[in-house]
């Protein structure tokens, strides 16, 4: 295995996630895209850890997973609340907080 391939894969996954966040309207899909970006980062961490022969990157990847889990819990709860009140999961509709 070549670490460069893993990094390339991570970049591709991250770009897919970022584009997804920017162009999709559904909050659920945006969430999934964010998860994709996080996992792309995790992949990069692990790949670099392997490359340098240290364990730091792998540890950080576990932290990221924990934080992502917590974030998903809170985020999904907010999403549920918004969906209940507005009958919509589109992020473009939730635009009351503005100038």
């Amino acid at each position: 295995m070549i670490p460069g391939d893993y990094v390339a894969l991570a970049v591709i996954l991250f770009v897919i996630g970022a584009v997804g966040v920017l162009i999709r309207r559904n909050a659920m899909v945006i969430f999934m895209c964010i998860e994709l970006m996080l996992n792309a980062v995790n992949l990069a961490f692990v790949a670099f850890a392997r490359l340098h022969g240290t364990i730091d990157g792998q540890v950080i990847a576990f932290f990221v997973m924990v934080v992502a889990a917590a974030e998903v819990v809170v985020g999904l709860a907010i999403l549920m609340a918004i969906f209940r009140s507005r009958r919509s999961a589109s992020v473009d509709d939730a635009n009351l907080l503005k100038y």
Partner: protein
Amino acid sequence: MTGTLAGLPMRAASALPTLAAVGVQRTAWLMLVFPLAGALVLLLGGRRTNRFGHVVGVAMPFASFVVAVITFVAMLGYPASQRARDVHMFTWISVGGFHVDAGLLVDQLSISFALLITGVGSLIHLFAVGYMSHDPDRRRFFGYMNLFVAAMLLLVLADNYLLMYAGWEGVGLASYLLIGFWQYKPSAAAAAKKAFVVNRVGVAGFSVAIMLMFATFGTVTYTGVFGQASSAGRGTATALGLLLLLGACAKSAQVPLQSWLLDAMEGPTPVSALIHAATMVTAGVYLIVRSAPIFNLSMTARLAVTVVGAVTLLFGAIIGCAKDDIKKALAGSTMSQIGYMVLAAGLGPAGYVFAIAHLIVHGFFKAGLFLGAGAVKHEMNDEVDMRRFGGLRVVMPITAATFTIGWLAIIGVWPFSGFFTKDPIIAAAFAKGGISGALLGSAAMIGAGITAFYMTRVLLMTFTGHRRWEPDAHPHEVPPVMTSPMIVLAIGAAGAGAFLMLGNRFVDFLSPVTGAPPASRGLITPVSGATLALVVLGAVIAWAMYGRREIPVTAPAARFPVVAARKDLYGDAVNEAVFMRPGQWLTRLSVYFDNRGVDGLVNTLAATVGGSSGRLRRVQTGFVRSYALSMLVGAVLLVGVLLLVRI
């Protein structure tokens, strides 16, 4: 010190040492205390003192008069060179090198004023008991009048300029309060304000003069300033003289600060008699004569004084000719007569004594004339238009008689007072020599003729001819409380001039302070003959115009000179054009600069910040995805920068 300055023979004044007062003169300060106490009791006592207020108000000036007479008699016991006595009261200000004692200077000049103020003042207070008897605020009136007497005595008795300044402001305050005594009348309130504002101009000059004295001499006492005056140089003396003249002009209603006096007639008539005829308006003359050692050093300042006097004496006389309001006609006359005094004071030692002599007899006859006018006004339901009088001689014989004596005194008919005091002034003006002497003398002589004209006019329109009264007027002779002061003043008006001037009595008395004038050349001179001829001419013209002909009830239309005189010779118009309008422009300019300049800068800054933040706010669209894009762009930029920096 005897010397000649620019051809004028002069004996310099006030070089005499001042001794400490002894004996009864040590209590001279009681003169101030009595009226001050009266004012305090009446003004602080409130309504409780209403019942006896007028008694206190009359008793206090009279008590002062008694003290003044005792002080005067004690003074007569000293030889002429030792009559100036200093009464030390207390240390007033002592800050570093600045030390001012509150002390009274009792000398021949100040005691003459003190006797006039308290004597004539007491009589006018007595008159006011009757005149103000129907006024609910009579107690307050007497409180203010007593305050005035106290301040005026402080003005003339002070032994330094700073204390004199305190009195100067005190009489200004009393004048303001009394002109505006009927403050519910807008005209009275405006007149009071006008008098106050015009006097600010004069006070500016006076106070700068005091500062200059302190800066130059390090002291403000008369002895200190006069002792060093000759060492200060002619420039300083001229500056001091002109600044003091500015102060004198405002207080004494001299051109160009004359405009307030005619409006000041809004005050009750006793006020006009005491403050705006007999005493306060003569304070300017006192200031000039008291500052004689300064004026003696500066020909320029004295020339300015004589010009102001000569212009004002004609100015006031011309205004007096056209006024139908009896009090305003007399006010014009007051301006004119003080013009004579100022003219005399400007002639230096040759005129100081005559200025003061004329001032004293003017106090008698003008106060008497004003009280006569007040009595008439009192009986005619507050009517002051002389076209509505006429024939009052029959119903008010005593008033008419005293007024006639005052008339004879002011126009200067022998042997009445004016003859003895006005003719020496005219003669001294001619004796000044040169073109200026001839001009000043002619002005004074023509003024005498005009005086005869307007005073005869007043007398004829008021007391003779047909009755042109309002239908509801029922005049009677005023009660004795009002006639007795008029009679006493008429006696003074008749005899004071002869008493003072015959045998050089007053000249010898006053000359240690002011310097002696050259010996007079007898009573009947070509100048006095010509003056008397002009006086008779003026009186005859007045009789031809107002005695022989019927007087219309409304003023007939008139052409240029009369119209101008009716409008106070455009004094107010000049003030408006020269001071008021430019002042308004200046304020408008300042307001414009403030609005556009100062505020404009601040407002522009605020508007710029507000506008740009308003535009920047639009970035907060509420669209989450656009935020996400900006975050991404930002992160990419950040990473790019980091990479670049590392390279």
